[in-house]
């Protein structure tokens, strides 16, 4: 009997859910190894300068200590091997506060920790250290990256002088941290000249090549195993020193070694979202047609390496505007290298752009939704390409209806409920939709008329549900129930794949698996030598042709036609806030994200992705900020007691809606990606709701109670 019902598109439960909640899913440090030793890192307490002396004598005396590794005895590594953030113990130089300067390897984690505390370090401090952002941001530099050169369209910012209505404001966003639930952790096991690294990696093959290159090994000598990951949000995209230092410790002690960063060390070991100052200048006609959009960005980066999140990206594509400027300036600082952080550039950039649009709507006395729809671009303004499809207007219109936007009071500060003021806000967002080259293998086997499939792909599942959507894809592609499918991912020995980054995962992996399913079906048809009126499934063929086992592998890429279009996911975010007028404390009572992201493979895991992005957006809007002490370069906010992620009480009712969209241009399955877009526009929607509630415009995140005091 053939099951014609499609599994793709159904909100089935995660196939690994039970394993996770019962603790059976193995994360990096759950892998047992005989005779394991434990490494603990210790870090610099200055921001710039050099180590003049490291005294490990006291530490070495502690029981259980096997080895102390510093720049004085660490092996020479290739610092250009592709790891991010330096800190590979290659010399005495210090370029940021909290740089790894050594590690203790001991029989137990506790012994290593106690010993690390006894290491004494003397420094020569560099008086020219760059740690005061406010001062340095007055004289920013040109970025080195060519993609960040000034982008001018029409008359650029100069057109602003002629605008009938103008908004010119500065928006600030602070340093944020990824802080996935699972800290970065590695188990390194050498087998002769070959190395196995159990390590949470968003890009399995990327981790493999970077680790190999840094250790001066061939990629095939290094195997990355990472089937389950407790989140990454960009911080496990590129890999950091801790990965390779675990291998170094294992080599130097001839033992398997486990190294897990502490939560405190996570603040300055694995990148961060940089601080940005964004100036937005909008010019418009009196009836709300945009004439100028300038987005000028100042961001910090590290002194020895440049990463700048693309805050101007939304401004490139969101609105029809003849004159525009997007410019980046950078402030190199003695801080760990910033890195990709959920919705890189788009989440922070949309805070500036979409706040400014709200300010413009207010000034024009226009509804902010109407203003956006009025400036909807017919094609991608940044490159003139047609949209593969664009759902902004649908998101806005369907969202407005579902949210009850008509209940919004257009005059700020007039919607009371007891001691609380209520406000509504809206903001849009977007993220590019791309497919990246990935390969997948399918291995079929048959046991008493039941066909089983093993799907192999070096993809990663950050906890987003990749395992599940790939099982659904294979189920439909092979005609086999999900229960008879095993997904194997997270292992560099499997067919190579793209990473779970930049919202390319679902489209790249699902298309690869789907193509492999089609290929195996074609091959089975060919093998049968028969003609079929109705295309049989691979499962049918295994039975009808009495085949015990069959396998194939294929590689998939984005369709070439995709190049001629601009393909994006789009969203509209609706926030309702309630602000206690006495305390200034804000609560997001309701939040609705409406997303157009093409084919939604599993509405249940997709919803989790979107509301997860929304919750971080709430954190971005209201609570999260990391402060660097400009005298020392250390984080004054150095634990979860000071760095506030949203707690349950900060999160009200969340709803996610998806636009029913078929867009087969970006890839054959029409999958556009949702991981990043879920946070884009969220902070702006909340900040706009805060303005609507109390008439105070907060342009510097997070919106803490002190900023809302009556003045």
């Amino acid at each position, binding site marked *: 009997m053939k099951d014609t019902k499609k599994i793709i598109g159904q909100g089935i439960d995660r196939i690994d859910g039970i394993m996770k909640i019962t603790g059976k899913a193995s994360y990096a440090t759950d892998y047992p190894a005989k005779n394991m030793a434990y490494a603990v890192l210790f870090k610099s307490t200055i921001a710039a300068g050099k180590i003049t002396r490291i005294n490990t004598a006291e530490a070495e005396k502690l029981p259980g200590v096997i080895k102390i590794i510093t720049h004085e005895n660490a092996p020479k590594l290739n610092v250009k091997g592709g790891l991010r953030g330096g800190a590979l113990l290659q010399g005495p130089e210090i370029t940021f506060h909290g740089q790894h300067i050594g590690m203790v390897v001991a029989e137990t984690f506790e012994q290593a920790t106690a010993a690390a505390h006894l290491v004494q370090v003397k420094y020569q401090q560099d008086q020219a250290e760059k740690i005061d952002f406010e001062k340095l941001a007055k004289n920013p530099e040109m970025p080195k990256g060519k993609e960040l050169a000034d982008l001018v369209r029409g008359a650029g910012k100069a057109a602003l002088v002629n605008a009938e209505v103008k908004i010119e404001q500065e928006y600030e966003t602070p340093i944020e941290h990824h802080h996935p639930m699972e800290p970065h952790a590695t188990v390194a096991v050498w087998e002769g000249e070959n190395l196995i690294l159990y390590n949470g990696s968003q890009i399995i093959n990327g981790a493999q090549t970077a680790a190999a290159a840094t250790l001066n090994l061939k990629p095939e000598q290094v195997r990355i195993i990472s089937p389950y990951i407790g989140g990454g949000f960009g911080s496990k995209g590129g890999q950091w020193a801790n990965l390779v230092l675990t291998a170094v410790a294992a080599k130097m002690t001839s033992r398997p070694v486990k190294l897990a960063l502490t939560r405190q060390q996570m603040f300055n070991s694995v990148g961060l979202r940089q601080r940005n100052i964004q100036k937005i200048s909008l010019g418009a006609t009196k009836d709300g047609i945009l004439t100028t959009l300038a987005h000028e960005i100042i961001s910090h980066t590290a002194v020895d390496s440049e990463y700048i999140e693309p805050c101007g990206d939304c401004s490139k594509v969101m609105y029809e505007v003849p004159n525009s400027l997007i410019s980046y300036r950078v402030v190199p600082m003695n801080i760990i290298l910033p890195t990709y952080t959920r919705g890189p550039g788009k989440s922070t950039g949309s805070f500036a752009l979409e706040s400014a649009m709200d300010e413009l709507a207010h000034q024009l006395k226009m509804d902010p939704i109407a203003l956006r729809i009025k400036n909807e671009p017919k094609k991608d303004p940044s490159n003139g390409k047609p949209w593969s499809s664009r759902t902004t207007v649908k998101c806005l219109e369907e969202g407005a209806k579902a949210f009850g936007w008509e209940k919004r009071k257009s005059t700020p500060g007039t919607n009371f409920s007891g001691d609380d003021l209520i406000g509504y806000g809206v903001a849009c967002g977007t993220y590019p939709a791309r497919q990246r080259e990935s390969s997948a293998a399918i291995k079929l086997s048959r046991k008493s008329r039941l066909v089983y499939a093993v799907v192999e792909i070096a993809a990663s599942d950050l906890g987003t549900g990749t395992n599940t959507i790939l099982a659904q894809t294979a189920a439909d592609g092979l005609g086999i129930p999900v229960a008879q499918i095993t997904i194997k991912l997270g292992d560099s020995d499997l067919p190579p794949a793209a990473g779970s980054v930049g919202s390319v995962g679902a489209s790249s992996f699902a298309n690869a698996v789907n193509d492999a399913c089609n290929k195996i079906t074609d091959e089975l048809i060919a093998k049968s030598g028969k003609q079929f009126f109705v295309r049989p499934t691979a499962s049918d063929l295994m039975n009808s042709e009495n085949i015990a086992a069959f396998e194939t592998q294929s590689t998939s890429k984005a369709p070439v036609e995709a190049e001629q279009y601009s393909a994006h996911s789009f969203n509209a975010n609706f926030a309702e806030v309630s602000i206690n007028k*006495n305390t200034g404390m804000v*609560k997001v009572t309701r939040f609705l994200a409406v997303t157009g992201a093409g084919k939604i493979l599993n509405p249940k895991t997709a919803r989790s992705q979107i509301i997860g992005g929304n919750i971080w957006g709430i954190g971005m809007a209201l609570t999260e900020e990391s402060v660097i002490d400009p005298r020392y370069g250390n984080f004054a*906010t*150095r634990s979860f007691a000071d760095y506030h992620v949203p707690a349950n009480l900060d999160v009200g009712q969340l709803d996610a809606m998806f636009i029913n969209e078929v867009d087969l241009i970006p890839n054959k399955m029409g999958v556009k990606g949702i991981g990043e877009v879920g946070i884009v526009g969220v902070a702006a929607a909340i900040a706009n709701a805060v303005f609507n509630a109390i008439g105070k415009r907060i342009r510097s995140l997070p919106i*803490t109670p002190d900023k809302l*005091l009556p003045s």
Partner: protein
Amino acid sequence: MTPFKFSIAENPSAAIGLLQKNNSAAFLAGGTNILDLMKEHVTNPTEIIDLGRLQLNTIKPTTSGISLGALAKNTETANHPIIRKDYPLLSKAILAGASAQIRNMASNGGNLLQRTRCSYFYDIAMPCNKRVPGSGCAAMEGFNRMHAIFGWSEKCVAVYPSDMAVALSALNASVKVMQQNGNERIIPFGDFHVLPKDHPEKDNSLNFGELITTIDLPKNNFAGHAAYVKVRDRNSYAFALVSVAAGLDLQGNTINQAQIAMGGVAHKPWRALNAEAFLKGKQATKVNFTKAAELEMSAAKPLSHNQFKIEMGKQTLINALEMALKG
């Protein structure tokens, strides 16, 4: 953490005895604060004396009020029927603090002795007079948004973080301790925590080796008119920017006595004595509440990042008094 010896005390005098033998030992109650401090190497006791077996975990009415065992848990205390009925202020303050999990572990005695949350105190790479006397105060010229506006000294500008203690202060509690010689000593709450002055390493007037046995509360007349308002950076699980515990003893609309304490503003729960004095005998009106709040806050001395606490303190005082009035 530095390795330590673990000892178990069977009764209060045994606990004191163990501590007498080792002056770098420390008591362990719920462990929610001291273990964190040990992990961060802020305190490095060589011996931990577990108080878990001490029979000091009861909450019982006395002729003059109620007595809270030092080892009774915060959760039990907040949910005790008598506390909820006669001391709702205490119940509300406890429940405004930490998280359910932490309150389940935290003891009443441990809560009083929790140390400041100044992040420089926790970061052993930073100068801090409270952690290392004489090393300097990094917060004074540093990031001091969370710090004191009342009663600070050049040596230390930290605030004391407990919510529970703010209510205890407003409720005129007293702390009963067992001294090294086994005798009892009663410390009025206002004298229990101290201002930093020249010795910020001292948070309170407990002497080394003294064990808190109970916290005692007198009866009060404002169970129906009490409020605890806490302003914080997120809606739960954050320390106070400013908090106010207020109780009003009313006769009609006239204030017989107002008892008000503030949290998040000083090195100890800050009794708003000026506001209390102003309100005595006055009508309970918003105008009077505002005047009282302004009077209290006029003595505040802000630091570079916490100027906002003056306005926030004023608003929160007014708000707490209005909520207390409403009941």
